[in-house]
């Protein structure tokens, strides 16, 4: 039986720029992380998989069919795009019901599935609010909800936890893991190793349009242990957060951002840091967290050099 997602010598270029270069890979069911810095080719990889782009060369197959030009595949495929864009005049519930109608469900089932998906991403209370009034984290979650509402077999998630607060990040990570355990094929992209690591052990490392490595995340994790990792946190009380984390053994240095809302932490032991962060984040009101991309870029340079 063929893999749900299959690339055979697939390349894609935009004019003279090669975004993906001669990729051959089979992605099995379960959660697979697509890890690489910005500009590595992750979004192109996902768009080719989702049939949004045509390979310039080679072939991309999804559920055994060519990914490009097969709209029927989207009965069984869900995409959570990276772009933060919606029909802002709709409410969360209206968005999901509309997209479910476009997937072929009747009115009653649309509503029931929409509410179920909203419940899974903890947006049921905000279902009647206009999307224009959603916070960044809520917008991320509604994007995820629309991708899972029709219970697809294959789920393509482009940076799904970007901009989420730690509590909802945890919730989404748990959801992705559960979907993987249920036998779905979940391909999730991120430029943050720790994020991917929390979801799966199976990773694809992508850099400059090439798959650098595939396999167990622990194997590359061992290579990175000494490499400093940067985490930027936006909190309602960044000074309280700084006071809470400054004494942790995992923290190498701290600095405040120009506008005073951001705290940047350098850590040598990201696992330990993220593990300890949860309670401190709740107390100091962390509303957003990300790992600057330059950090992963340097990690990749480090890996490639080895």
């Amino acid at each position: 039986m063929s893999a749900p997602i299959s690339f055979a010598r697939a390349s894609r270029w935009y004019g003279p720029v090669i975004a993906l270069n001669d990729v051959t890979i089979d992605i099995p069911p379960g959660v697979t992380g697509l890890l690489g810095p910005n500009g590595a080719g992750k979004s192109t990889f996902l768009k080719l998989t989702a049939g949004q782009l045509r390979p310039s060369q080679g072939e991309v197959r999804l559920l055994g069919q060519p990914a490009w030009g097969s709209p029927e595949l989207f009965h069984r495929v869900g995409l959570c795009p990276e772009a933060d864009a919606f029909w802002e005049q709709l409410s969360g519930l209206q968005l999901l019901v509309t997209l479910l109608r476009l997937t072929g469900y009747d009115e009653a089932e649309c509503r029931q599935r929409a509410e179920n998906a909203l419940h899974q991403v903890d947006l049921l209370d905000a279902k009647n609010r206009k999307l224009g009034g959603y916070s960044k984290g809520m917008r991320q979650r509604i994007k995820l909800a629309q991708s899972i509402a029709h219970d697809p077999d294959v789920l393509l998630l482009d940076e799904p936890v970007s901009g989420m607060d730690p509590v909802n990040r945890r919730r989404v990570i748990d959801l992705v893991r559960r979907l993987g355990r249920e036998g779905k094929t979940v391909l999730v992209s991120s430029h943050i190793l720790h994020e991917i690591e929390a979801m799966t052990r199976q990773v694809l490392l992508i850099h400059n349009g090439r798959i650098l490595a595939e396999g167990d995340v622990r194997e590359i994790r061992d290579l990175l242990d000494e490499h400093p990792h940067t985490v930027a946190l936006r909190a309602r009380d960044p000074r309280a957060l700084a006071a809470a984390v400054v004494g942790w053994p995992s923290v190498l240095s701290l600095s405040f951002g120009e506008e005073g809302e951001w705290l940047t932490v350098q850590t040598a032991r990201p696992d330990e840091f993220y593990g300890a962060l949860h309670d401190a984040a709740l107390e100091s009101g962390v509303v957003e967290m990300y790992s600057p991309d330059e950090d992963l870029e340097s990690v990749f340079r480090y890996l490639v050099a080895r």
Partner: protein
Amino acid sequence: MRDTTQPLPFVPATRAVFDLSLEGMIWSRRSLLMGLLVALPAVLAVVYRVVLASGTPARGLAPLDLYALVVAVFWIRNVLPLAALFHATSLVADEVEGRTLTYLLTRPITRPAILAGKFAAYLVTSLAVALPAAVLTFFLLASARGWSGVGAAVPDLFRDLGVMALSLVAYGALFTLMGVLLKRPVIPGLLFLFGWELLANLPGYLPRLTLTTWLRSLIRHRPAEEGLSQLFAQVQPVGWSLTVLFVASAVFLAAAAFIFTQREYVLEQ
């Protein structure tokens, strides 16, 4: 039971896209602006009636001639094609610019169904403004000197409404094609409307290559004053005009659907 081996059937898919598009289109700034422009003759007709009621003697065109001028020159020749240009060229462009096209392209629906749903929404939005404005203008002007001759002119009103609708269909189809074919279709569209379409006023065979010629042939009452163009204006048989307009619209829409199906859309992140 859903058949997951096939895209959704064309009609329900088109209907779902239509419902989604209609709400966004009706309340858009573009629709409000075009609506004001399309409804302008109705406002002017009210002013005309107020002036008449104040006892000022009316000079110039008779009210029904004025109405005919508005239909032929203002609506069919200028404003409705302009409304079609601004709406239809943006059917896909708005989704690209708003980066919402991805949601439509990742549903089990064909791209022609997406285009058809959006085209239908454009048509309903435009007709919802244009037809009531025409009816209102007609009755305000036709009854300006009493209701005696109004009944006899009503068949012409229905005919005008049909031609206005056909004008929105034909120009809309052409500009939908330009919208999916060109990255910046507005300037070429304006050149087409106010350059190419002037060929309709020349003698010979060239006018048949314009949409205006065929649309103008369908209007029964001709405006009394169309300037020099009156000298050369050709009138084609009604049946032939209808055929040409329907076939041209179908060809434009089919070509637009084909191009939309083949095109990739790389949306900015």
